[in-house]
């Protein structure tokens, strides 16, 4: 594995220096995410008018598609890209492995929320909590694959093997993303077609509804970015502490070894000195 200089802990420093400089950026990102989420909720629940067809239920669509956008495209896009960068020998760095792992964990939360908010919207709209529809099934499959990735990270092995296994798993799971996206076009599904990212790229939502939906996309993307930064920091700290613990254990063993060699040398010294 190639270690970049940015990842290498310096003497007396467990955590790489670069992770400390970004605290203010992450704080500002967190504040922006919070403000935009509050604005989305306010517009979505109180300001926008009810829909002609879906009536009040349209309000759920100000959070469900943005959450799905983050889960499918942001989280998976980053996880897949970081996995490719880790697998490519020229760009290999532990940072990509950590980034992929962080994106997958945050993505799993958003995928679970995509399924839950979609199900809550589907119950009054379709009359059922769940249908084995192509879009729903492929998203559920994606969620299971995400859990598989997270389980794979916990399998005991050396860092290099774990990173390789996880990178391959992330790329296998990423194959499902275009299937989820195009499932409404490829098969006859209960789930409605794309409202914004449709084949003609002409959104079928307008006015205050469109602006609220757009704000929802921005808000949840900011939330994702903040969570990813936090999770990446945690992953960096965990790996740095693992390394520090290993170093400490090795030093203890060496010290024990030195002490036992010294003691045995002292025991043999009088016998050698006697003649």
């Amino acid at each position: 594995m190639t270690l970049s200089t940015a990842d290498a802990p310096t003497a007396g420093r467990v955590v790489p220096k670069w992770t400390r400089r970004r605290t203010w950026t992450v704080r500002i990102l967190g504040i922006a995410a919070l403000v935009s989420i509050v604005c989305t909720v306010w517009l979505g629940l109180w300001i926008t008018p009810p829909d002609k067809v879906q009536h009040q239920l349209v309000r759920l669509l100000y959070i469900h598609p943005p959450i799905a956008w983050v889960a499918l495209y942001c989280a998976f896009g980053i996880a897949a890209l970081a996995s490719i960068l880790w697998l490519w020998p020229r760009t290999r760095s532990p940072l990509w492995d950590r980034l992929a792992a962080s994106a997958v964990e945050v993505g799993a939360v958003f995928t679970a929320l995509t399924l839950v908010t979609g199900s809550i919207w589907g119950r009054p709209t379709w009359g059922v909590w769940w249908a084995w529809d192509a879009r729903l099934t492929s998203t559920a499959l994606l969620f299971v694959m995400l859990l598989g990735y997270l389980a794979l990270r916990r399998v005991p092995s050396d860092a290099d093997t774990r990173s390789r296994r996880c990178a391959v798993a992330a790329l296998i799971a990423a194959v499902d993303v275009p299937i989820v996206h195009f499932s409404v076009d490829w098969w006859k599904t209960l789930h409605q077609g794309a409202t914004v990212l449709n084949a003609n790229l002409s959104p079928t939502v307008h006015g205050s509804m469109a602006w609220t939906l757009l704000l929802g996309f921005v808000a949840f993307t900011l939330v994702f970015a903040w969570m990813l930064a936090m999770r990446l920091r945690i992953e960096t700290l965990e790996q740095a502490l693992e390394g520090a613990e290993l170093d400490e254990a090795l030093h203890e063993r060496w010290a024990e070894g030195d002490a036992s060699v010294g003691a045995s040398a002292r025991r043999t010294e009088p016998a050698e000195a006697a003649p």
Partner: protein
Amino acid sequence: MSYIVAGYAIALTTLAVYAGLLVVRRRRLERLAARVEDEQS
């Protein structure tokens, strides 16, 4: 309307709880890292 409230409540509560867990985990690890750094130096 109850479905809408439930949807927003579940989504926002889950994200808030996860965000809180991230903050707690980060702080705990930072304290631990600071302690290890002190011991090493």
